[in-house]
């Protein structure tokens, strides 16, 4: 533990803690009984015999002694023994780790391990099955839905239909391919979608605008016919990824520009922005965090969203 730059505070805490405990013990011992010297006046009066402490104030005020039960005193001593045993076994004295080596991070790991042991068999059952078979299993579907709600819904939405910049998972338009194994790979290892900024390569804003109009025309949108012609001539710069007809390339994650699905928006202004400044999208990898077995069930669920007919009827 390197919470402090010097070892001084470790010693400070240790000494203070032990001194406090010793002080409590000493106080307890010293206060549990005391000897009362009798003054000649008291001599023979047997102080304490009548249940008083022998203290007398203002001539005749005496203090009653109603002793606590002895087991109560032993409880106090037990707390001291407990404190010392605790400090020996668990971390508490400065940076001393304790005999048992207990750590909060270790307790967390133990809980994770326990959860894996509890739920592992459930996921293991599905891990051996084909993704399409898992997608058709109602129980796996329910598990997948809960996993999705927990880990995916923040970006893709509870209904998995995404929002601007986050793909809709319920349509059949896939950036990287919709085969079950590819969906699983996307979740396991994540994706890094880079649309480079083409503004400089294309030239002026006018060039960008013409390309944008051409791109819109690919999906049958209304666009300026003259700009479409000029834009088509300049589309060559985009073909390397999006292909000659703008059909995209799933191997590169280049979107199909000829459908009506727009990840970042389909207006001329947005498309121009996309072309000129580029886009960078990241799907984080979940493989290390969730593990293969959970991702397997999750991938089957995600795949089933756009393949409803292939799976059992879900309500």
């Amino acid at each position, binding site marked *: 533990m390197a919470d402090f730059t010097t070892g001084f505070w470790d010693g400070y805490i240790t000494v203070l803690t032990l001194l406090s405990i010793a002080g409590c013990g000493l106080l307890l011992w010293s206060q549990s009984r005391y*000897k*009362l010297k009798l003054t000649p006046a008291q001599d023979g009066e047997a102080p304490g015999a009548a249940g008083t402490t*022998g203290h007398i104030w203002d001539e005749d005020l005496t203090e009653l*002694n109603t002793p606590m*039960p002895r087991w*109560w005193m032993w409880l106090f001593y037990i707390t001291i023994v407990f404190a010392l045993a605790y400090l020996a076994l668990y971390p508490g004295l400065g940076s001393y780790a304790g005999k048992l080596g207990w750590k909060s991070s270790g307790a967390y790991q133990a809980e994770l391990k326990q959860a894996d042991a509890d739920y592992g068999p459930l996921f293991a059952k599905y891990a051996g099955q084909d993704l399409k078979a898992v997608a058709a299993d109602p129980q796996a579907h329910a598990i997948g839905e809960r996993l999705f*709600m927990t880990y995916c819904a923040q970006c893709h939405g*509870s209904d998995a239909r995404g929002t601007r910049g986050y793909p809709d998972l319920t349509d059949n338009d896939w950036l990287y391919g919709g085969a079950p194994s590819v969906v699983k790979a996307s979740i396991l290892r994540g994706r890094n979608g880079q649309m480079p900024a083409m503004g400089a390569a294309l030239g002026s804003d006018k060039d960008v605008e013409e390309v944008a109009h051409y791109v819109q025309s690919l999906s049958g949108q209304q666009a300026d016919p003259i700009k479409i012609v000029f834009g088509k001539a300049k589309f060559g710069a985009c073909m390397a990824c999006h292909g000659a007809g703008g059909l995209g390339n799933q191997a590169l994650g280049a979107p199909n520009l000829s459908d009506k699905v727009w990840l970042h928006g389909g207006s001329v202004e947005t498309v121009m922005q996309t072309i000129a400044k580029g886009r960078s999208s990241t799907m984080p990898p979940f493989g290390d965090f969730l593990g293969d077995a959970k991702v397997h069930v999750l991938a089957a669920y995600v795949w089933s969203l756009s393949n409803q007919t292939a799976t059992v009827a879900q*309500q």
Partner: protein
Amino acid sequence: MEPVEPNGDGGAAMMPGAPAVALIKMYAAREEIYPREAKGRYATVRWACVWLTQLVFYGLPWLNWNGRQAILFDLAARKFYLFGLVLWPQDFIYLAALLIICAFALFLVTAVAGRVWCGFACPQTVYTEIFLWIERRIEGARGARIRLDRQPWSVGKVAKKSLKHVAWGLVALWTGFTFVAYFSPIHALLLETGALALESWAGFWILFYAFATYGNAGWMREQVCKYMCPYARFQSAMFDQDTLIISYDQARGEPRAPRARHDPVLATLAPGAAGDCIDCTMCVQVCPTGIDIRQGLQYECIGCAACVDACNSVMEKIALPPGLIRYSTGHALTRGLSVGAIRRRVLRPRVLVYSGVLALIVAAFAAALALRTPLKLDVIRDRGGMGREVEGGAIENVYRLQIMNTGETAHRFKIAVSGIESARLATPDEATLGGTATRALPVRVRVDHGKGQPGSNQIVFELTALDAPSLHVKEKAVFFVPR
């Protein structure tokens, strides 16, 4: 002078010629109390309470309801079954209300009748009574037990003591088992206990509760009431001069005069020269906390009325009227009030305030419980996107409906949304939920282009069971129309 021994075993150090020294101890060993068995009206009432409370405690976990244990607090699943009622953690407020009701009921009862709870129904009293009964069967009555404890160890003494502790242990273990059975299904628990294959926490709690029962009822007894129970210490706040307390009628009893029945000397005495108390010390011998009630009201007195029973039977033997020690009030003793007057004085401000508050809380509690809908709905709006435009320019918002069917019957629910003109669900408007089930249901709400104002709009989700229209809840949510 004699060495001073203030508290039992310690001695005072004395040296000839030196000043006398007294050793004062702030802690004292417990002195064993051997309560004599009391018989009479109040002992009967106490035993009735023992039977009643213990039949309920030991019996309840064995009852079944609709194919499950009638009373089960399933901590792992966070469901609390009470006959037909299933409470969820969201219903914790009912537990708080129940505890408040218990507290006020205790205040009220204390103001009227003193510590009757302590004397007749408190688990500490009840289990001590059971353990004392076992002790008397094995070791004998008070005198025999005192003699046994003074004897040196012998085979017979070891046998008696062992038998007693084994019997106590069995009762304690059964009590611990029953306690855990409120949290874990009893039939499975019995099989596991029988096979000594208990899950470690169940085993721990059975042993822990058994140990607490054995220790408290066997060893600690009155020490719990005197030094551990906070109630003993704050009861004086509820007491007043019209509270019923166990009281010794000093005017009638004093001066104490030991005598036999129809003592011939007695007749020759002047009236008032001998009180009714014959100083037989029966009231002290039966006291489970070891006090002398004739010294007046003391915080140790748990109001068990054992001394009343004992004194009445003595009074009967010497042909005097009963009630030298009786339930009475401070005012009744000082002013000589009749029983009727004592009863009339029950209706005093303190009692009326406690009763009023108690009645209010009980009514609110009962009403809340009766009107409780076994269905809960939380609406969580997706924060990922404000709202999306779909075909025809309609605006769509996404919500997650957290539906909790807290009852035990499965239902099919109709989901409706309202609040903005043309608001409708774009997802199926029906959902099925099993009994005591939770479901997170993603739904999409759609509003036509131009409806609702830009920004936040309030909408309301409504959930109605198709087979039971009375089972329905509403929950507000926000619909966002992009500007």
